[in-house]
């Protein structure tokens, strides 16, 4: 029971934190519950398919299929989260200031919630397929029988979902006018962390150079294997011993998405008569 509970908790935790942030980021948007739960359901279905075809995927691309698949999923999620953030940097302010008005709630239907749903689906797919493969192994090993396994699974699932719920309630206690700023930062860091994980997969497949395999080691401060280390790994891409190429992907993601957010947001600030530093950036750059 315990091994099942721990494994399920670990994998659910990562997906659950992402769902919690996405739910907070889309607070007040019409139909977000349906989009996000649809994303979770699609991800769970996909996870079973991926687990079923794990051997086929692994054997593809001369044995590097799994790396390419994982990296592809991670970079797709980065793209989705980035797209939503960039869209919000133009429209977020009007949504926040008129959140209570029905007209704006309807207009927020134009918001790319599909991008968030897709990112959630990809997170659930990745973590879920590991759960399926691992539990299958435990079941074959005959550890305690199906009842103990089911009990462990339910406990792990409940604890994982509780963590995501906690981060959600923590975030929505932030006043609405600040919430979008906080969640867009969180989503930006989340995306950068996912990009750095994607780079690690390409490095392990020997498709990218390490550029320094272990630039530094902060495991004496916070181990990758501790609970806090895992949570920070998911939230901001923390890793105790980063490789150079991971830093490159992390920084590039921050710069590209952050830069586009400023660029796109600058027009809105100028239009609403509140120019900020960002409005000095010319679109030609």
């Amino acid at each position: 029971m315990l091994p099942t509970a721990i494994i399920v908790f670990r994998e659910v935790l990562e997906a659950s934190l992402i769902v919690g942030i996405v739910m907070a980021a889309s607070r007040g948007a019409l139909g977000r519950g349906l989009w996000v739960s649809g994303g979770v359901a699609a991800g769970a279905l996909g996870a079973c398919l991926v687990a079923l075809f794990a051997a086929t995927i692994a054997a593809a691309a001369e044995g590097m299929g799994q790396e390419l698949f994982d990296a592809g999923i991670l970079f797709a999620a980065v793209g989705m989260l980035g797209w939503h953030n960039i869209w919000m940097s133009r429209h977020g302010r009007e949504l926040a200031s008129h959140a209570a008005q029905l007209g704006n709630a309807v207009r927020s239907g134009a918001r790319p919630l599909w991008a968030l749903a897709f990112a959630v689906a990809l997170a659930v797919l990745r973590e879920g397929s590991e759960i399926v493969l691992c539990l299958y192994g435990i079941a074959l090993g005959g550890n305690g029988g199906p009842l103990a396994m089911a009990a462990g699974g339910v406990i792990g699932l409940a604890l994982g979902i509780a963590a995501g719920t906690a981060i959600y309630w923590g975030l929505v206690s932030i006043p609405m006018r600040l919430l979008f700023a906080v969640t867009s930062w969180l989503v930006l860091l989340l995306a950068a962390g996912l990009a750095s994980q994607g780079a690690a997969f390409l490095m392990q497949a020997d498709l990218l150079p390490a550029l320094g395999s272990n630039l530094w080691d902060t495991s004496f401060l916070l181990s990758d294997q501790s609970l806090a280390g895992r949570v920070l790994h998911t939230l901001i891409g923390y890793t105790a011993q980063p490789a150079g190429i991971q830093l490159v992907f992390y920084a590039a993601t921050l710069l590209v998405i952050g830069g586009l957010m400023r660029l796109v947001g600058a027009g809105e600030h100028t239009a609403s008569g509140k120019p900020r530093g960002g409005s000095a950036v010319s679109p030609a750059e």
Partner: protein
Amino acid sequence: MRSSLLAVALVLATAAPAFADDPVVTITLKDHAFTPSEVPVPAGVKVKLVVSNQQPTTAEFESHALHFEKIVGAGGQATVFVGPLTAGSYEFFDDFHKDTRGHLVVK
């Protein structure tokens, strides 16, 4: 655009030689133990690690310090590339059986 293409070409050019003559190390996973559990590898070069899972269950060959995680099916083999590394000891483990651990000893 042109410069990014150049960058991609450069990256591929530096990554490509690994298939040629990097040292290959084979690790066996059996009865929830790695053999050898202390794996000596040279410093300063990229190393190709081949793990052979001789168990009836799926394993996940993983290391935080070495930046890899790879599912290895029952009776299957998987390859990951690590390094170039500086001297030291780097832990790896089976993520599906956390007690199954080993080290890469780089000299």
